[in-house]
């Protein structure tokens, strides 16, 4: 199924309307992707916008792993996760010209698309009480990527360490809430049920955690 069918929503956030993804793209701030990554992403996506399939393949090689990881962690189904990744890269292909380098790197864009589509699919299933496996379970389905260039790898590891450290500063309940929301795609209501916490408590944890992360990541990113 190609996503360009007239009735299909090509957006990662499957609202009937309006186009929130385009809106978000305009407003969001830079993400902590290294300058080398960003320059390369900009160049690659410009080439994709011109119809360069080799450039799309390069982006795929760099970022598909994270896209499939987040899709799998949300959907817990390998076939569906792979389908999400296919849809994600079809979307990258046709929307590359809309990529906003001011927002951040291609990895954030690709993962956002994959994650949003996975959440859409999950919520369409309307599965109650699904089991949430550990983070380690989600990691086990993939094999290591070939080594990227040293500069790219250094930037990637720095970003990873920086975000992991920021998450590590959160109180356990807040960190768990963010993990369930971001990595497992649960809504606040679902998190409340999952953690046997009042919904108001979950909402407060989300606010406090996001504020702390914004402070830590914003400070370090400048």
């Amino acid at each position, binding site marked *: 199924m190609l996503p*360009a069918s007239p009735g299909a929503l090509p957006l990662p956030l499957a*609202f*009937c*309307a*309006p186009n*929130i993804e385009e809106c*978000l793209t305009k*407003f*969001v*701030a*830079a*993400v*902590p992707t290294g300058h080398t990554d960003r320059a390369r992403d900009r160049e690659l996506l410009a080439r*994709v*916008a011109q*119809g360069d*399939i080799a450039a799309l*393949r390069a982006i*795929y090689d760099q970022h*598909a*792993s*994270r896209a499939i*990881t*987040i899709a799998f962690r949300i959907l817990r189904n390998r076939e569906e996760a*792979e389908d999400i*990744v*296919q849809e994600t890269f*079809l979307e990258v*292909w*046709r929307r590359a*010209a809309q990529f906003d380098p001011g927002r*951040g790197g291609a990895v*954030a864009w690709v*993962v*956002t698309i994959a994650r*949003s589509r996975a*959440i859409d699919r999950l919520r369409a299933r309307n599965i109650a009480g699904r089991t949430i496996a550990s983070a380690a379970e*989600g*990691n086990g389905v*993939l094999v*290591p*990527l070939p080594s990227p260039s040293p500069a790219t790898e250094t930037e*990637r590891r720095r970003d990873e360490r920086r*975000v992991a450290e*920021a998450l590590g500063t959160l109180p356990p309940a807040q960190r768990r809430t*963010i993990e369930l929301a*971001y*990595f497992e*795609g*649960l*809504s*606040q209501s679902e*998190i409340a049920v999952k953690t046997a916490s009042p919904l108001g408590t979950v*909402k407060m944890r*989300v*606010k406090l955690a*996001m504020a702390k992360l*914004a402070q830590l*990541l*914003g400070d370090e990113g400048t």
Partner: protein
Amino acid sequence: MMRRHNLTCAQFVDKAEAFALEALDELEQRACARHIVRSIHHHGCREALASAQSVVDSLAAVLPGGAPPAALWSAIEARLGIGTGSSNAEWL
């Protein structure tokens, strides 16, 4: 038919973090989307959303890497019609 709930800027700002995480329930998520897109004048909405979205984008950095199945790229190529002379120009 469900009645649409129009948010104020203060209400949107209060929900911005969860909205960026896509962690709101469906109706709230849609209400936030409508608010940020349709309203012309905002009071802190864009800033709150930008900050929250920046955090969400950052979280991608801790996703573990790994190689997707070898056949996956071939499937993408097939869906793009690669090899039959197509390009993404038709999508634009």
